[in-house]
């Protein structure tokens, strides 16, 4: 799965050694983060319980790639150069992914304010891809020692989404994004096509 993240972070056909080194370092760092997150969440889970969280992580990666592709098409349609559009889209999607993953942390105070209705804490927990992976690993992530110490969600009344609901959301999201990608890609070639050469002046008959 970390390998699948690599294409998000730049073309391997980059012109300079420096750019390539940056891309490789970024890829390695991203891989390390994913491995650490997986290790933290999966932890001492027996090997036979690994497939579910790994499958969930794969779903997250696929949806991320599709989202990045759509974003790239949109940027190119607006006139951005393809390589720049791809890079911007990659960073946009990656940032969104990390913000969602960390939602239980930075949205904790909001959860506190909305706790009387019960819906805010539940919604925030449901929005985090990290929670989805933990759900698949049968881990109560928000009550583990670190999260319990750093987010108020563990002390509030909320419900985790069901695995089925999360699975359907990712499948539906992937399908929707795939269709969107296809539709957007049809508009990109027109916008990205170089302008027609100027018409050659007609030769006058002698």
């Amino acid at each position, binding site marked *: 799965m970390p390998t699948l993240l690599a294409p998000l972070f730049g073309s391997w056909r980059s012109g300079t050694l420096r750019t390539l080194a940056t891309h490789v370092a970024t890829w390695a760092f991203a891989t390390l983060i994913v491995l650490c997150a997986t290790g933290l969440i999966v932890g*001492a889970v027996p090997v036979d319980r690994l497939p579910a969280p790994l499958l969930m992580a794969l779903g997250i990666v696929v949806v991320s790639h599709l989202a990045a592709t759509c974003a790239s098409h949109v940027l190119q349609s607006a006139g951005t150069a393809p390589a720049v559009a791809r890079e911007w889209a990659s960073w946009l999607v990656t940032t969104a992914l990390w913000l969602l993953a960390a939602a239980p942390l930075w949205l904790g105070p909001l959860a506190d304010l909305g*706790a009387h209705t019960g819906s805010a804490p539940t919604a925030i927990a449901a929005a985090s891809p990290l929670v989805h992976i933990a759900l698949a690993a049968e881990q109560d992530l928000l009550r*583990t020692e670190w999260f*319990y*110490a750093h987010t108020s969600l563990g*002390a509030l009344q909320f419900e985790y989404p069901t695995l089925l609901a999360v699975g359907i959301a990712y499948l539906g999201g992937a399908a929707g994004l795939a269709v969107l990608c296809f539709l957007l890609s049809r508009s990109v070639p027109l916008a990205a096509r170089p302008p027609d050469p100027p018409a050659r002046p007609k030769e006058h008959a002698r």
Partner: protein
Amino acid sequence: MKRLALMTLALTLASAPATQAAESMDPQLKEKARRAIDGGLNFLRAQQAEDGSLSKSVGITALALRGFLESHRGYNEADGPFVTRPVEFIVSKVNPDGSISESLQNRSYNTAVALVALAATKNPKYADVIANGQKFLKGHQIDEGEGYQKDHRYYGGVGYGGDERPDMSNLYLAVEGLKATATDPKDPVWEKALVFVNRSQNRSESNDQAWAANDGGFVYMPGWNPPEFGGKTDSYGGMTAAGLISLLFAGVDRNDPRIQSAYQWMTANYTLDVNPGTDAKHGLFYFYNAFAKVMAAYGEDEFTDAKGQKRNWRNELAQKLISLQAADGSWVNADSNKWWENNPQLVTAWTVIALEHIVR
């Protein structure tokens, strides 16, 4: 049958000192407390869903069921659907691993309180469910089975059930569930529990952790309190009550220095306005519930507080709880939403149980 007899004996012995001691309570106040219990039970009955559940939670349903079964009205399954439906709901949530829970995240908590409720039915029909629930709790306790050695600070503890982080609160509930269902006093679960209990007490003579102070009170888990209480290792009321109950139910003698120092902390820091040892109202009703249980189990109606004032905890706690009851018979923590205390069904169930320990 033998198990049922043992359970009945266990429940009787647990309440015996309290029955005698409750005679020191003001009779008029006792009557008001009973009416407050009735009001709370009426509220809970009106809140039940079609399937007898409350908040679709095994835990809250079981606490409410316990409230009905242990009340001065002597309700039992013969009294109607308001008892039988919650029982059916709870039993319908039995899992293959023996836990009794609708969700992963509160498996241990739910199983523990469900065991107490099912034991209170005194119906031998649930003996197998109870036995499997006990097995689950003992298996969930952190020990060599989870790869932890005795020197780890988690050892002997019990958590919520969705992860391995144990805490004093869930341990006390598990201990209460095992005690109410007559778990063998020689079972290793008790000795292991005491390892965790010792490590959660601010008493350096019995706590081998470097952070331990010496005021005798308890913290949430070895070396840590929730951020709501500062995140450090200051003793506070809810956990001191939990720790004291755990010591008593694990069979430690009342004169043991661990119990005496915890009791002294409790009486020296006594207040019903905030969670003792803090200036916050987080977990306040949890404290009221645990405090009533532990003081009833300890067996003293009166004590002298830090200012030299004599206090009758039954009268004072009853007055406090009655004053906080809403017109519809419910209770809720209006000052804090932590640990679900903004849920009137949960808080009413806790408070009814607390009042029942006061008047018993």
